[in-house]
Each structure stands twice: as structure tokens, then as C-alpha cells.
């Protein structure tokens, strides 16, 4: 005979504890994080380009100034070299100091050998 109140219910459901979000949720989360990361990367690339532009233009604006200063120094050295050449070659008849070895009026920087 059954006990009063009936038999105990049969436990047939599986007893599985909750073990974190499902695969779909994780996948969605990872996708979201990656998407945000790539978005920032894109923004950063655009920004990098502008930073490079800024750097380049800061240099371009300084070029005339630096070039002018360098030119004055180069001219001073040129004239000094010319004087030296005149002094050294004064006994050689027909020597033209500072005469280019090329038959071309185009400017060429002097050879960079320094004789002390």
C-alpha cells in the first residue's frame, strides 16, 4: 500500500549547475570587443596620419630658416677655401682659383674633403 500522501515524486530532471554564459553569448561578447578594438584602431590610424602631417609641416616651416643659416655658413667656407686656393696657387701662372672643372654653369657642392 502507498504511504499516506502518496509516493515521493520521482526526480527525473538532470541536475546541471549554471556554468557561465552560453557559447553564443561569449561569441557575441568577443565579437563586440574585437569590433570596438578595430574601431579604435581605425580611429588611431587616421589620427596617426594627422600627427605625421603635423610633424612634417612643422619641419617644412623650419626648412627656409635652417637652409638660410646653413647657406651662410657654406658661403663663408667657400670663400675661405677660395682665398686659400689663391694663396697656394699664386705662383702658378694662368691658374684660375675656384674655376669649375665642369663646362656647366650649374652649381655643384664642393668636394667634402677637408685638408688641415
Amino acid at each position, binding site marked *: 500500500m502507498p504511504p499516506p500522501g502518496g509516493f515521493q515524486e520521482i526526480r527525473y530532471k538532470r541536475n546541471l549547475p549554471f556554468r557561465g554564459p552560453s557559447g553564443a553569448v561569449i561569441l557575441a561578447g568577443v565579437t563586440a570587443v574585437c569590433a570596438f578594438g578595430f574601431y579604435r584602431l581605425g580611429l588611431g590610424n587616421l589620427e*596617426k596620419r594627422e600627427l605625421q602631417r603635423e610633424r612634417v609641416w612643422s619641419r617644412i616651416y623650419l626648412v627656409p630658416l635652417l637652409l638660410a643659416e646653413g647657406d651662410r655658413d657654406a658661403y663663408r667656407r667657400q670663400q675661405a677655401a677660395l682665398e686659400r686656393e689663391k694663396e697656394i696657387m699664386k705662383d702658378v701662372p694662368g691658374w684660375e682659383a675656384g674655376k669649375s672643372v665642369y663646362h656647366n654653369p650649374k652649381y655643384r657642392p664642393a668636394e667634402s674633403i677637408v685638408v688641415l
Partner: protein
Amino acid sequence: MSVYHKPDSAAHPYKDPAPLPASVPQVQELGTTSAPLKSAAFFIGAYCKDYNDDFMLCKGENRDPAHCLKEGRRVTRCAQDLITKMRENCLQEFDKHWNCLELHNQEYNHCRKPERALNKCMFEKLGLIKTIPGSPEGKTPIHEVKNPVYTGVQK
């Protein structure tokens, strides 16, 4: 007799003692180091545009250093003038900005705060605006972006 010294192994760098010929008018060299120059670069570009363009056009004609001495002197005098004016009007901001550049590898993006103070001062006192040619239209120029991606280096 003169002896050849190899420049790469000489004890002292070779310095030519001869001064500039007297026929060339003397001009005081700027003597500013790299960080203040970088700090002032955009203002030099704005303030001395005519002289700079003139000089570069002259250099385009002929690369000979003797060809553009006059234009070069103008360029230097103009920069001198600007640096003097900057120091008269915005000395504090200027010093702060270039010291920051000096300490941060001379990168503009690490020194936006002092830079904004300097830009503001330069606009109010001298009416000079920093503009970067070629930046995309309709977008905030990079030096005025509020929340940039690339900020200072973590320490």
C-alpha cells in the same frame, strides 16, 4: 705643410676660422635650439610666410649658397623678430611648451595642454593661428581634438 686629418677619427671637429666676407651684411644667427624651434614652427610658418616663400623660390632658381644670401637674411631676421615677440608676449606659455617638448621626445601629441595655452596666447596677443595645411576639411584639426587616441606615454 698641411696634413690630412681624417674627419671621422680626428680629435677635434674641423672648424673654419675665416669670418664671413665683409661685403656680406652681418646678421645675428637665431641660435635657438630644436625644441623652441619646433614649438614656434607653425607660428614661424604663419608669420614669415612671404619671406620663406620668397627664399624657397630663390633656392628653386639656383642651389648655389651665394645666390640667396639676401633672401636668407630676411628669413632669419623675420624668425628673430617672431621669437622676440613670442618671448615678449607669451614667455611663460612658450617656455612651458618647449620644455614639455624637450621632455617628451619632441612629440606634439604629448604636449597638447601647454600647446593649447600657447596657441591661445599667440592668437590673442599676436593674432597668429596654427594651421596644418592639407588636413581633411570639416574635421577638427589634430591639435584641437578633445579625446585623442594617441595621448602621452604611460610611465
